């Protein structure tokens, strides 16, 4: 699966959270990072090139700071010019049909404010309806959004706990089951094992991968036993 990460941020160098997450994915070869403000400072978007990129990827992600309940303006402009009837969507389908679409939102307000009675009054699911509608109209499957609240206040030892599901949002099959996460992690470990030949790291990670595999099959066996107990 190839993921196109379309990032929109007017001042990305100064954004601690954007830098953190973009650095966090630099080892993934199956993610294309596409920062719009950097590529099109004059807003002159190469529509054909953008459509070609969409065609080449299976999962399309918009990543942006949630400004006034929406995206920065260049991302809206990108939608206005790139999503073209007859190409990306239309009565006979388009190049986005069957792909997956998701949002990664950096949010400056605390999560508890996004609910009825909270300071923001509405949930993120309510406020992101236009993106859900866009995914629906273009035939894409809308993924649960990845919301990062007040990252700048997150303690260092908690940051990795956010980076791991971020990796999953970008590269894992859309299914949060234990089996899916096991297979996803074993693939990642395999890649590292292959590049760190002959080191202690390789031995330990290989051993860890074997343990994960053994545990996985033990869980499968226990499932069978339980199933038989309940259905005999």
């Amino acid at each position, binding site marked *: 699966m190839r993921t196109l990460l379309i990032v929109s941020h007017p001042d990305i160098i100064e954004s601690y959270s954007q830098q953190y997450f973009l650095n*966090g994915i630099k080892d993934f070869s199956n993610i294309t990072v596409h920062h719009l403000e950097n590529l099109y400072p004059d807003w002159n978007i190469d529509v054909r090139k953008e459509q070609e990129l969409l065609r080449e990827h299976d999962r399309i992600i918009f990543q942006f700071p949630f400004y006034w309940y929406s995206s920065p303006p260049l991302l809206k402009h990108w939608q206005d010019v790139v999503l073209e009837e007859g190409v990306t969507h239309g009565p006979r389908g388009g190049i986005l049909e069957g792909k997956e679409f998701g949002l990664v939102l950096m949010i400056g307000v605390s999560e508890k404010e996004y609910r009825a009675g909270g300071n923001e009054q509405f949930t993120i699911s309510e406020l992101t309806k236009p993106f859900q509608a866009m995914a629906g109209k273009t035939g894409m499957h809308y993924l649960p959004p990845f919301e990062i609240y007040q990252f700048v206040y997150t303690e260092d030892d908690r940051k990795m706990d956010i980076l791991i599901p971020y*990796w999953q949002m970008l590269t894992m099959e859309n299914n949060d089951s*234990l089996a899916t996460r096991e297979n996803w992690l074993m693939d990642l470990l395999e890649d590292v094992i292959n590049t760190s030949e002959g080191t202690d790291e390789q031995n330990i990670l290989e051993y*860890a*991968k074997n343990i994960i595999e053994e545990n996985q099959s033990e869980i499968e066996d*226990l499932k069978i*036993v339980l199933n038989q107990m309940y259905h005999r």
Partner: protein
Amino acid sequence: MEQNAWIHEQLQHLFTNTDDYNRRTLIKAAQDLIREQEKRIYQMEGEIEGTIWSPKRWGE
């Protein structure tokens, strides 16, 4: 389980001695996942035990 205790120790050692942040995150992901698997196994074994000893089964 003894085998798992050993791997936890080894992964923690690797985590502490790895400089690359993303590699350390991957090691942490492996630690977390193995812990989750252990918990799942423990819960399922408990469920099997509980079902075997259930009074509903005493009449069988």
